[in-house]
């Protein structure tokens, strides 16, 4: 790929190439992530922004192999820089990089924690409500310790929580999974993420924590393995704005302290602007535009990016009228997607050539600015414009409601056909 080594001085830690993830549901194949490519560099914060259903979270889950049935990563490579692994699995290696998808599952699983870890959106539902927070973090520490001591073993890496374990614990307390050392480390981690009185708080249960405190605890848990890449999936969406500010400050401090790479997934363009060095914009499973923060915010090329930026009311300058994107996020059902630009039906600048799926073009701005739009290649030509009702008349009849992604204009079209 031509863009893997650009101007930026930092080295890539992860190169994602043509990643596709599909869900095979009863209604048909859903193309949640389609041919997504991007790089994550050492010590940077990369943002992925998109609306609900754009595939940003599934992209993150695909990276760490957590996509659950009926979903599956169907193609693509995930090149991760790790000299040791590259040496050991030379079949799957390219220089210092190793393709995660070609590694055995047990090795991939062992990478979760020391290489990649994740902070989820909803702290309240991400912790086990019946176990003290400190214990849960200590468990993460213990898992990492055991993984480091014996990287190839996946046996006894995790523990169950049932009546059996409870009884066993009461009878032979020495069989406890976590020991004092990992508990101490857990308290230390809680302290690092700014939880006051960490020793006391470590003994408390998740319901005794506020949302912001619990999000801090989750960050502590994610840091247990000292990961190379921290994936933060909407880490502040569930929080109030003053608490969001605390958590964003914390994430930045931790990132700078440890020179970690962070993949920041959010729908909030403001969070992206505050935190990220480079940005990918996702729409309908694709990265439609990527580049530096300035590229995307100041020189948006893709009409979707422009539309997103035009949709947010500005806090410092109340524009008289918002410029929304008409219509709704499309269904990702394979049978309904067609082979056109997925944004063409909502795009104010759709042209005849948009009926063919566009490749990624280089766009104006920095050397790494790319847009999956013909406008990056040549300017808008009005003579080529699609008639405004093109997609209303020309689309196949609908196949029924799709969960979560019902198309806004579809019923309207039908109406017009019936009239």
């Amino acid at each position: 790929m031509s863009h893997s080594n650009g101007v930026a001085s930092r080295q890539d830690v992860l190169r994602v190439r043509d990643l596709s993830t599909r869900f095979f549901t009863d209604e048909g194949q859903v193309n949640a992530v389609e041919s997504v490519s991007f790089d994550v560099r050492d010590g940077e914060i990369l943002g992925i922004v998109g609306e609900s259903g754009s595939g940003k979270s599934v992209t993150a889950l695909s990276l760490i192999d957590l996509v659950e049935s009926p979903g599956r990563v169907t193609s693509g490579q995930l090149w991760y820089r790790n000299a040791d692994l590259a040496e050991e699995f030379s079949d799957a290696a390219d220089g210092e990089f190793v393709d995660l998808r070609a590694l055995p599952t047990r090795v991939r699983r062992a990478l979760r924690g020391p290489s990649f870890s994740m902070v989820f959106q909803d702290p309240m539902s991400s912790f086990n409500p019946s176990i003290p927070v400190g214990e849960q973090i200590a468990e993460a520490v213990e898992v990492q310790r055991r993984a480091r001591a014996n990287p190839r073993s996946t046996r006894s890496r995790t523990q169950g929580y049932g009546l059996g374990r409870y009884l066993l614990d009461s009878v032979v307390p020495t069989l406890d999974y976590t020991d004092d050392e990992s508990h101490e480390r857990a308290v230390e981690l809680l302290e690092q993420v700014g939880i006051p009185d960490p020793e006391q708080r470590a003994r408390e249960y998740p319901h005794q924590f506020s949302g912001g405190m619990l999000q801090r605890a989750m960050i502590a848990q994610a840091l247990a393995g000292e990961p190379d890449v921290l994936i933060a999936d909407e880490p502040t969406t569930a929080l109030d704005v003053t608490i969001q500010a605390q958590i964003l400050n914390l994430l930045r401090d931790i990132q700078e302290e440890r020179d970690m790479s962070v993949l920041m997934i959010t729908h909030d363009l403001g969070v992206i602007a505050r935190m990220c060095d480079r940005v990918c914009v996702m729409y309908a499973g694709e990265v439609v535009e990527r580049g530096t923060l300035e590229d995307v915010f100041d020189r948006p090329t893709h009409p979707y990016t422009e539309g997103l930026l035009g949709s947010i009311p500005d806090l410092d300058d109340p524009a008289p009228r918002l410029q929304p994107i008409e219509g709704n996020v499309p269904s990702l059902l394979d049978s309904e997607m067609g082979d056109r630009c997925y944004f063409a039906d909502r795009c104010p600048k759709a042209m005849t050539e948009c009926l063919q799926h566009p490749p990624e073009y280089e766009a104006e701005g920095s050397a790494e600015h790319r847009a999956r739009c013909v406008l990056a290649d040549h300017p808008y030509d009005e003579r080529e414009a699609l008639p405004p009702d093109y997609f209303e008349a020309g689309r196949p009849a609908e196949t029924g409601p799709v969960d979560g992604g019902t198309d806004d204009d579809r019923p309207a079209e039908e109406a017009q056909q019936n009239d």
Partner: protein
Amino acid sequence: MTDDPLVRVESLQKYYYEQDTFVDRLLGREPQSVKAVDGVSFDIAPGETLGLVGESGCGKSTTGETLLALREATGGHVYFEGEDVFAMGDDDRQRFRRRAQVVFQDPYSSLDPRMTVGDIVAEPLQIHGQSDREGRRERAKELLERVGLSASQVDRYPSEFSGGQRQRVGIARALALEPEFVVLDEPVSALDVSVQAQVLNLLEDLQEEFGLTYLFIAHDLSVVRHICDRVAVMYLGEIVEIGETDDIFEDPQHPYTQALLESVPRAATSEHGRRVDALAGDVPSPRNPPAGCHFHTRCPYAREACREEPPAYDVGRNHEAACFRLDESHAYWESTPIAQNAADSEGADGVGESTGPDESPSEAD
């Protein structure tokens, strides 16, 4: 007449009680109150949009529901065109309900999944005595078209619509009785930004067309700035600042408003790397709010005087904030700063509480 407010809220209170069952009383337990709304006053002029902002749990939604008499108020008064809503008889109450409507936050749970959208939109008409079935259906079609849906969708079920479309159905339902006043309870917070902008534009158009008065409840400050004429900022069941939108956003007086505005991430490149002086700690529990000024546990300017008595603000059309600092002769200036918070504000070059766990105040928890 036009100078009179359409809605006037005076010292509205809504308390919820815990440990209030018969058994608790037998055991001699004192009922414990949660002061969700604790003495809120404001008025709304005809045709204006008043924004009610605050973080979760500050009582903004409860205020909206209580002033519509959807919940029974613990104390205070609400006057609609000068008439006391809580003292109304059944007939008057019915008439009030025609004229004051509500749009709820969650477009998924606020529509009955077993009714067609036509029936949902027409239901208020039925309740308020329009017995002609065909007429109701025609009116429902008209309303659906007005909110940007299609008349042919009248027989569809809510599950066939996306979130943005459902919110339009909710708006159509609220408009069915041609109300004058609509409480919009977080109408766009469940929607994606591009769809959110469509709905905001629709709300503005409808307000202009039908001369509606809005109470717009939201937590998103940029949305509030965009759509509201005046704004009231709530914290722990009380209004801390109220005024014209531009005054609030350009010249915030209350430290809480200042912190809120400071915290919002702006979608612009100039935002990059901005360190926010985050407010320390969490919102205290409304079960046991701090004495005096409720904000003193997080306020960087708090002094001993703030613990002693709650600050007040004047109700009126002016820009008002409930903070002692605005009164130059107040005893506040003589009293000693509360050490913990002050230390926090002086380390103001952005370190906040997040880096140094040792400096973090724990009293908020």
